[in-house]
């Protein structure tokens, strides 16, 4: 094998690995805060990517209707929870978050009237739609059962994945789509050619990681989220609502998923169910990180990306098999190293 191929595969691996890293980090975050293993992460990717692609093609994506509908249901759930103490402020806040917010996005899209907007606007709209879906998904499916066991949450998570994937098929059809690249420039350094898109992937990944680091390290809400992850009862005792932390975690995860999708869709054709497979690779990284360690997850994600790149070069038929087999030695090692873990109770 010559150096050029080696470098090329590494570059490819790192580009994909950066995206898996983002997804893995989101999974770790959601699990730490809510104990939900976020299988629907894949749908956030698909929805982000295909919403962006549809908007760029001047079509109205079905996801906005889903966001509006889920908002209405979330609002109904809120009203039901508030029934004992119907404070005007709470209700107004709920109307703003669940009803006004998705309708406002719809309004903007409607005003565009099917003209493809510019790339930045399309990206922002796609992110907002998926963020809304993520937020309402937590409100509807997970908040009411937040106190149950990890297993129950996992079952709910699988259910959400299947339902959202079904919606994906309805909205976007079985055909794959591609979206426009964020930048079509390219630079060549030595033998390597860096496309604008791959540079965007690195840049956005690094910016997001720095942004998350600042959020968790320096803001009150970031710290509150960490507190919930470290000690749920302790957090409640200082007045941090588990539901608030859960909503923020899902919001972050859905935005991260959507960004990943938007970064990938100019490079690869995405189908309604591709997101799941991509999310699964982030999941492997998260498992290697034990669902707790952020740095380990990010490193593992780069490894997963590189293994994928090399195996698709040498044994492309077995690419997925090789990548997913990575998880086996890790699980065996972990189960040998760790004593039996009891389910956390609270």
């Amino acid at each position, binding site marked *: 094998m010559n150096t050029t191929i080696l470098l090329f595969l590494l570059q490819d691996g790192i580009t994909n690995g950066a995206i898996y890293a983002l997804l893995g980090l989101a999974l770790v975050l959601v699990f730490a805060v809510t104990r939900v293993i976020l299988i629907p992460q894949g749908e956030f990717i698909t929805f982000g990517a295909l919403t962006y692609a549809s908007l760029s093609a001047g079509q109205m994506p079905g996801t906005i209707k889903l966001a509006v509908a889920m908002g209405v249901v979330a609002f109904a759930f809120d009203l039901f929870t508030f029934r*004992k*103490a119907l404070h005007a402020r709470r209700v107004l806040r709920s109307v703003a978050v669940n009803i006004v917010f998705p309708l406002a996005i719809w309004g903007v899209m409607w005003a565009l009237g099917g003209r493809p907007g510019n790339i930045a606007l399309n990206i922002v709209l796609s992110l907002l739609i998926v963020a809304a879906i993520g937020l309402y998904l937590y409100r509807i499916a997970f908040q009411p059962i937040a106190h149950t066991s990890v297993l129950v949450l996992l079952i709910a998570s699988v259910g959400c994945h299947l339902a959202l994937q079904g919606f994906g098929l309805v909205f976007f059809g079985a055909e794959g789509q591609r979206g426009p690249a964020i930048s079509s420039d390219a630079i060549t350094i030595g033998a390597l050619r860096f496309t604008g898109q791959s540079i965007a992937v690195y840049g956005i990944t690094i910016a997001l990681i720095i942004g998350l680091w600042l959020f968790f390290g320096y803001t*009150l809400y970031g*710290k*509150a989220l*960490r*507190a919930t992850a*470290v*000690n749920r*009862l*302790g*957090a*409640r*005792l*200082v*007045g*941090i*609502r588990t539901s608030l932390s859960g909503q923020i975690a899902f919001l972050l995860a859905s935005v991260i998923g959507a960004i990943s999708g938007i970064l990938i869709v100019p490079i690869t054709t995405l189908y309604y169910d591709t997101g799941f497979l991509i999310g699964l690779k982030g999941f492997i990284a998260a498992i290697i990180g034990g669902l707790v360690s952020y740095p380990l997850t990010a490193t593992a994600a780069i490894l997963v990306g590189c293994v994928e790149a090399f195996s698709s070069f040498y044994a492309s038929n077995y690419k997925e098999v090789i990548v997913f087999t990575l998880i086996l030695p890790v699980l065996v090692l972990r189960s040998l190293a760790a004593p039996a873990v009891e389910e956390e109770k609270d």
Partner: protein
Amino acid sequence: MKAQNSALLQVTDAHVAYGKVEAVRAVNLEVRTDEIVTIIGANGAGKTTLLNAVMGILPLKGGVSFAGQDVSRIDIEDRVAAGLSLVPEHRELFATMNVEDNLLLGAFRIDKATAARSFEHVYNLFPRLKERREQLAGTLSGGEQQMLAMGRALMGAPKLLMLDEPSLGLAPIIVADIFRIVSELKAAGVSVLLVEQNAQAALKIADRAYVMELGEFILDGAASDIASNQRVVASYLGFQHEGESAI
């Protein structure tokens, strides 16, 4: 029903059960404004269970009203907002975060200006915490962790502080410190509900006391009366140091 004039916390006919086993039965408890009240009782009497249920961590059958508001149905977080605060038996600190962040989160619900004053107040009460503000909570000594747990609870400027065995596992000199601080809180306008194994020390600083046995209150009254009650002396005060001679 309007709560009695100065009753801050009023618990009426409280029952708390773990499955079918009732750990707290028919308990009536009252804490008035500017009062230190202590609950003493043997291991397993149900003290922790009662405090946790008053805080909303465990479901309670019966009435709980706080500051004139019925709080028996509302979430823990809303009880915190109403001014009720618990320092639980196991402290429940944010172990991987530093002292200052733990305190900051204690003030999660209140505005920035009040939080700044709370910081000053807490650092005055516990100068040790100020020295260690960059240290991770999980690496603090037991006594420091207890101080941090109390400090974090005080950051939210509570009306009533419920302490579950603040002296548990601490050296006598630190225990004395903690009890001194508890009595200072009263002067600062914070009422205290104190659960303690160390009955002697608790009765010394308390205004009133309840004695709990097998899930029920069997005695209550002024702390000084309880301290001189025959039965209490025999079961909780007289044999304070017997355990130590066994070594």
